[in-house]
């Protein structure tokens, strides 16, 4: 296993990426899909508004993007810190 300080830096980097991802996760679903929908009701999307689209399609697409981004980014971070497999 890598030495302690490098593994601490690795973990801090991981936590940072997770935090950013979780903010996006929250905004795309709970934010745009639920809480912010009334504010964004002026933006029309196919017979309804942006919030409806996020609740039924957009949030799922954002989740997909997030998981692949995380897998790709962490592979790079693993290699940078010498903890890859």
């Amino acid at each position, binding site marked *: 296993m890598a030495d302690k300080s490098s593994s601490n830096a690795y973990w801090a980097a991981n936590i940072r990426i997770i935090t950013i991802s979780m903010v996006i996760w929250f905004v795309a679903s709970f934010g745009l*899909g639920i809480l912010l929908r009334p504010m964004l009701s002026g933006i029309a999307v*196919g017979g*309804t508004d942006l919030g*409806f689209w996020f609740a039924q399609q957009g949030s799922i697409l954002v*989740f*997909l993007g997030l*998981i692949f981004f995380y897998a790709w980014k962490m592979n790079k971070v693993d290699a940078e810190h010498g*903890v890859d*497999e």
Partner: protein
Amino acid sequence: MDQYTLNLLVVGASFALYIGIAIWARASTTAEFYTAGRGVHPVLNGMATAADWMSAASFISLAGLIAAVGYGNSSFLMGWTGGYVLLALLLAPYLRKFGKYTVPQFIGDRFYSQKARMVAVVSLIVISVTYVIGQMTGAGVAFSRFLEVESSTGLYIASAVVFIYAVLGGMKGITYTQVAQYIVLITAYTIPAVFISLQLTGNPIPGLGLFSTHTESGLPLLTKLDQIVRELGFAQYTTLNTSMFNMFLFTLSLMIGTAGLPHVIIRFFTVPKVSDARWSAGWALVFIALLYLSAPAVGAMARLNIIATIYPQGTQSEAVLYEERPDWMRNWEVTGLLKFEDKNGDGRIQFYNDKNDAFAATATERGWAGNEFSYNNDILVLANPEIAQLPGWVIALIAAGGLAAALSTAAGLLLAISSAISHDVIKDYLNPNISEKGELLAARISMAGAIALATYLGLNPPGFAAQTVALAFGLAAATIFPALMMGIFSKRINAMGATLGMLTGLLLTCAYLFTYLGVFFIPGTNMLDNVAANYIFGIPPASFGPIGALANFAVAYLVSNATEEPPAHIQELVESIRVPKGAGGATGH
């Protein structure tokens, strides 16, 4: 060829395929039985996870649930997919690095406590057994509708097929049959969805069709739907008709619950590396999204089609004569899932919302004496090909798809149950000296026992089957998810904290649900009526998961900080699961 023969052929062929795979993928070691030898390609594991996750509820009920309520039930879409972000970022890679066989085993090792492990085993069994009842009854219903056998006979056939591949192949057999089942179910779901989207909007992709123009009226499809449901006194489709707080909490509850379901988590133990676990979660969501992006379109379009069938000249004109109703209605009336009652004796099928007081005057004016037509939400998917007048082989595919969805999820649940019994209880608690061969035999016997129990519960479904789903998600959110997350992200949580935290989550969730839904869901034993006015802070029982999780986190944190730090070797264990390096070595092959 008649429809019955066609159904029999397609379903029979799919079953033959599953059994063929079972014979090819026999398990010869416990590592193969519990984790498919950790040799599953991440894309294939993604496909298997998608089938494992998408149950009879996703395949048969999801579209109908969304169609019934509209925007408000988007919770199911966001909740059941958003949980995968939590899984991929917070749990799967680290649990794969830990490299053992079961979820309770991680909890027991990380919190160096047999008590914690047994609390996890109890939660796992309650979650998975309640979940499996729905799958078995779903399989029985699909059999009785499409193959015209008694639903009990159908259940025996389904159990026998699962028995063959789950007992022989364990996780290895289950994984590869789930891959085949995924292909069957997604094909069955997508083909009718594409045709219906084409018929209504000219767009072949249902998720895009939902936001396109309704060809016949020239209006956007959702505007058209809003208009006709309003004209029949129903709540508007695209608006929120409950409270924002409820929708928020219910979505969160489904997300955390999804991430804490043991039968989904153990799928990530089967891939070779930590990075594979990360990719695999992404692939799982790709394959899930193929169905989940179509489901809201299937729901909205089916609702539009049903209303158009009943009011062929538009909702402002006369309803269709009962004698002239289409064949699909006749077929489904036989099953009791669709009902007609001519209340005003005019021979026509008036379908409207008679619970809406503001609409009552309009109804009286038109000579209506109450709603005459009702349907079970499940037929939106099951009858979809018939409503859209698609060929017979598509109907047969729906039958095979529904069965694939129910069987694949049942098998995953059964493996979670049997591995907890043979590995956590027998191998590591009752008889630690059991040989590899003895444990494999114990695993097969546990599997057979779990199948027998599931079959029994499927034959005699407790009257409360529908409500137990709330229990499964609530407990997964309140016990398993917080324990796993704290085990990975905190070095400070100790045995006492984790055990008391899980117990708090478990008991609090049960107490809250039993208060409104009855003790063990027995009707009449509830202390308060299950109505919004009685809820504490307005929290419905089905949305209690996040509150239970919060209580678990808080108790674990406070108790751990008031007691001793975990020993050094546990802190090292946490260090080691946080880095991917060395995952291959831990598997021992």
